[in-house]
């Protein structure tokens, strides 16, 4: 097959895939740990830049500032990542990474925060299923801080929905 599109067709090597997988593993862990921490207002904006595009359940926010605005008013969270996947995006170098995450998230006090006089089968306060997509892109202006560092990556785009 020889489709020529606007992208440069580059072959991904096993090493590219391995580095991307490792990066996604690290990112998902440190990102949700930061999100669930008491210090999230200081920690989470580090992952974003002014150009980052975010949507939270269909509502757009712009850049690290928009994120702060969103998260300031967010109840406490506890995320549990149940599944994630990551692709290096062909045609970019060093490659952008597309990460998709599926898991559940508990807000506020969870079921324990519900009043005691609830009907059975009440789902409020229970963990929701969330789906989150990140596009991670390299920041060419960020100086490397580790000897083998390919680049520093930040969240170029972030789209999250509650889906269950």
């Amino acid at each position, binding site marked *: 097959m020889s489709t020529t599109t606007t992208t440069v067709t580059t072959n991904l090597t096993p090493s590219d895939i391995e580095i991307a997988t490792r990066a996604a593993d690290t990112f998902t862990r440190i990102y949700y740990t930061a999100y669930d921490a008491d210090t999230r207002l200081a920690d989470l904006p580090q992952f974003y830049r002014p150009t980052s595009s975010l949507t939270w359940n269909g*509502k757009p926010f712009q850049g690290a500032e928009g994120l702060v605005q969103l998260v300031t008013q967010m109840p406490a969270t506890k995320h549990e990542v*149940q599944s994630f996947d990551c692709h290096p995006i062909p045609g970019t170098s060093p490659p952008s990474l597309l990460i998709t995450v599926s898991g*559940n998230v508990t807000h506020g006090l969870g079921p324990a925060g519900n009043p005691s006089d609830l009907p059975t089968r009440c789902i409020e306060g229970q963990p929701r299923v969330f789906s989150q997509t990140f596009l991670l892109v390299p920041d060419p202006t960020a100086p490397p801080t580790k000897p083998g560092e390919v680049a520093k990556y930040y969240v170029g785009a972030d789209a999250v929905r*509650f889906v269950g």
Partner: protein
Amino acid sequence: MSLSTQPAASGSKTIASSALRRAGLMDRDATMRDGTDNAGGRKGRTRSGKAARMLDINRDKPSGSRPQTIRFSTSATNGHSSQTAIRGASSRPTLAGRIRRNAVSGDGESSTPSRIPVKIMTPKPVEAWRELVKKRWNPETKFLNLDSMLEDEVVKKYNLNPPGNGGTGRDAAVIFKLAGQLKPEVETLSLANNKLTGMLLIQLGRYLPSLLNLSVQNNSIRDKKELGMFIGTKDKFTKLRELVLVGNPVHDAALKHNDTAAFRADVARRIPTLQVLDQDPITQISFDAPQATPLVSVAKPNATTFPVEMGPAFVTGVDGSLVSNFLIRYFQAFDNQRDALVFAYDGAATFSFSANTAIPTRARITGYHSSREMPNQRKLEWGSWLEAGSRNLNRIGSDANKTISNLHIGGEQIVKVLTVLPPTRHDINGPPEKFCLDAFPVPHGQNMGLLVTLHGQFTEVTSGGIRSFDRTMMLVPTADGSGAKLNGWDVTILSDQWIIRSYSSHEAWKPGPMLVQAESTKPKGGIVSAPSPQPPQPFNVASLPPDQQAALATLPETRQNLVIQVCAQTNLNAKYAHDCLNGNEWDFNRAMANFNNVKASLPRDAFL
């Protein structure tokens, strides 16, 4: 890779970034090194004994290679205590790492028989080890040099058996615990040249989790399993930046099989903070990770409502009909003739699917798994998805081969896997509220791409059961003259990720306000707001006893999830949860009902 099995050759390497070198841990000639280099002390050590040990280390021998040393030493004298040595050699070390030798009798089986056996009042072992640790500790450089312990004056004085040379895992743990008590905290540790197995190193991370630099050069870590005992996965060494593993059988084997890239990747995966391995920097993508202590103090999360309502579909920066036309055509082909999608993908496009087999809490409470409206839910099986190559990196991330083989590249490869996945029916022209679309432009190199996420449901044709999905695609405009253009695709897929999960209702994304907690049915004013808005901890598998964790790991993934779910709901231990499910044909609701009927009669040890 230019790693050398010969430690002596490392002198020619110049890695400016090596923190170990700065700390004096990686020396020019490891074979020349012993405790005296840094810690001061004994002079006049015989070279021959040392050289023999180095040779032993480079052979793939069982870890309890003490007898070799003894044999060499004794052959230099009069065959003293050779009986003991031979007996020792025949007893391979057990997994428990108890490399027992005939030490209790104190038969004078010293490593340097030439020394005159002067009887010294032996202190308690812990005090003797403390003397060794103190002697080898440099608080200024925060460097604890425990290399070649067998050679040390203190060890000889008290006739100690260092771990790896006759000492047990308990001795190792005592030494590591003493090291963990040093002030200031140890940053750099060398355990080089000690014949340590992975088992003997199992407690190191427990007592010294914050090490920055660590050398276990020239030891006896045999294989991946032992490596796992030593470094574990992810949480054992939380700050480690540099590690030296050269001169261990596990490393030698990787070199021999030309497999160092995979070996390094495995170690890097297990220790996410690692920057330098065996003097070579680890290639990695990094992030502006949050500081351990934030520079500014910030408000803790205390909101009790969501910042904004659930919004409807969000499509911006693109003609909405372009996206919907694309998706309608895509899913019609996907449901009816998947190989027709070959031109929808770029020649370098990537595709993978992931099964999230967890049971969604709200769907479970609502009872969708056994509802009359969806009679086929019980017939759904995860097997066909898992076997077809789910790329849930939470599950397969440790398997380098699967992470590669389950990522499909290029239209032809992609349709090949699409055609073997279970047949589906997406009701894309049906009720629109059953799908939820977000699409907006994102940077793609110097150009722009379109990030599309679609959430919805589909019917698995074979069983008639319904599943939910999340589909994420990166789209770019189709190039003129391309196969995609000729086939009428205005946009082309660059990346496509598909998450398949158990059914949850589309009510989840119904636009409007959302609740954090349930509202009381009582009149307002009577509710006392809760003091601390910290969510409860979800059930953690790690809270199960180790034997139950191990047993759990042998179950198929879907059954693991069921057992975990029952444990979380009932506080039953995994064994009882398993038996309860097994007695109810692995039907969650039946098992829960059964539990509720009998819970009063269950013994206390049924619970966690």
